[in-house]
């Protein structure tokens, strides 16, 4: 489903983000800024971004972009 908002995704805006190395690599591969990814977890009060967070943020971004729009999306009829 296409999300609301100009970018199609809500953007976090932190200056420090906790994530394990493989998650940081995934963010680079997906071309997203880790500090912008909404975190689903917290570790001792600090945002902790998981691979799933990165994927869903990237997916939302793709769906919202023109290139993404040309791809079949979840809202398209089966």
């Amino acid at each position, binding site marked *: 489903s296409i999300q609301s908002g100009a970018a199609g995704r809500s953007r976090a805006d932190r200056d420090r983000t906790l994530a*394990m*190395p*493989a998650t940081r*690599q995934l963010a680079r591969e997906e071309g997203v800024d880790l500090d912008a990814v909404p975190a689903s977890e917290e570790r001792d009060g600090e945002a902790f971004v998981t691979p799933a967070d990165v994927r869903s943020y990237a997916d939302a971004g793709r769906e919202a972009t023109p290139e993404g729009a040309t791809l079949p999306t979840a809202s398209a009829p089966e």
Partner: protein
Amino acid sequence: MVMGDVATGTDVLVIGGGPGGYVAAIRAAQHDLDVTLVERDAYGGTCLNHGCIPSKAFITAADLAHEAGNAEAMGIHADPAVDMAGLAAWKDDVVDQLTSGVEKLCKANGVHLLEGTAAFKDDHTARIAHGGEGQGMESVEFEECIVATGSRPLEIPGFSFADEPVWASKDALAAEAVPDELVVVGAGYIGMELSTTFAKVGADVTVVEMLDSALPAYDEDVTRVVRSRAADLGVDFQFGEGASEWHETGDGIEVVTETDEGETASYDADKVLVAVGREPVTDTLELDTIGLEPDENGFLATDDRARTEVDHIYAVGDVAGEPMLAHKASAEGVVAAETTAGEPAALDHQAIPAAVFTDPEIGTVGMTESEAADAGYDPVVGEMPMRASGRALTMNESEGFVRLVGDGETGFLLGAQIVAPEASELIAELGLAIELGATIEDVASTIHTHPTLSEATMEAAENAMEQAIHTLNR
């Protein structure tokens, strides 16, 4: 608490002062509970007095003497003489430092120490029989009780530990002389550690094992490394044979074995070490008084708070089941103690590492490849042979490997098997990795110091990702 002549009262009574019991006692006292620890023999239990610690002291000394005597290739010429009585005295000194440390730590944390054998009198009272005849009795009333009575070595028919030539591991670790010929019955971890050690200080060692391999709990290719090194040291393996009896000969003993097919063989020896396993100690406790019964293996069943079926009675350590390891005992001791203090602790650890201090060492944690497959994962495996490790070569010890097992789908690290020098230390990183839910890629992307053995862990992770630098990727 008022110490009385007849009965004293305590919040938490801990029975047994091994790594399960003393850790539980200290932690409970740290939560300001009134804690009494009863030990009938020696603080530190099997581990400090007759197990982990003395065996590792013997291994250090045997390794040093053996390595120095076999280092011509490195330009070192030495012909070390091992004075077993001197070694035993040093080992005793190490044990004394640690056990008196345990005593001091207990006292410093406010734990009351009682010497004697505890048995249940009723739901909230234990009788403490002080050592020796006529030394008297004492009763202790408790709110909650942590049972940490440990385990003892199994005897086999025909071999009584009361007979002088028959050694339990404890006797081997008190040896003041090296037997010329030693037969070891059982190739489990205790049998393998001690066989290697005695071979290194000059004994002629024969290992008799009923099953068809050494360290049957481990993967074949892990144990192969250890077995072939032991064979190089002159250890003679006799698989598929069970020890049935022993006799005095003129100048020593002979140990008779039998196969499943009834074939017998016999081996000359000066001593025979029986290391076929250990059984939980519950018979000292009069458990029926409180309505508790061991399970079919003799263990006290517990929940994830280390609580037995009787609500205010906990059991930790060897008496509470496998794995019978000191660090498992301590981890359970902590949880039992926290629970008595009303803290929300639980035995929810993802993995319990284990080590065998053979040559090379073995360190394992989590699942093997086949265990992962059985559990429904599609495992990926990465390996690094130690002969490709710069550090291992500079240590002149390049046998073995590091193997990591991950979930092929998500990349999560599921387990590790290491057979390598310092495997007991290397496994720590992987225990933490599993505990934290790390992936194979997380391990591969962490910078490891050069030149270290721990780099092999990173390389094994990269190998699983098919991008290893120092090995060829399949």
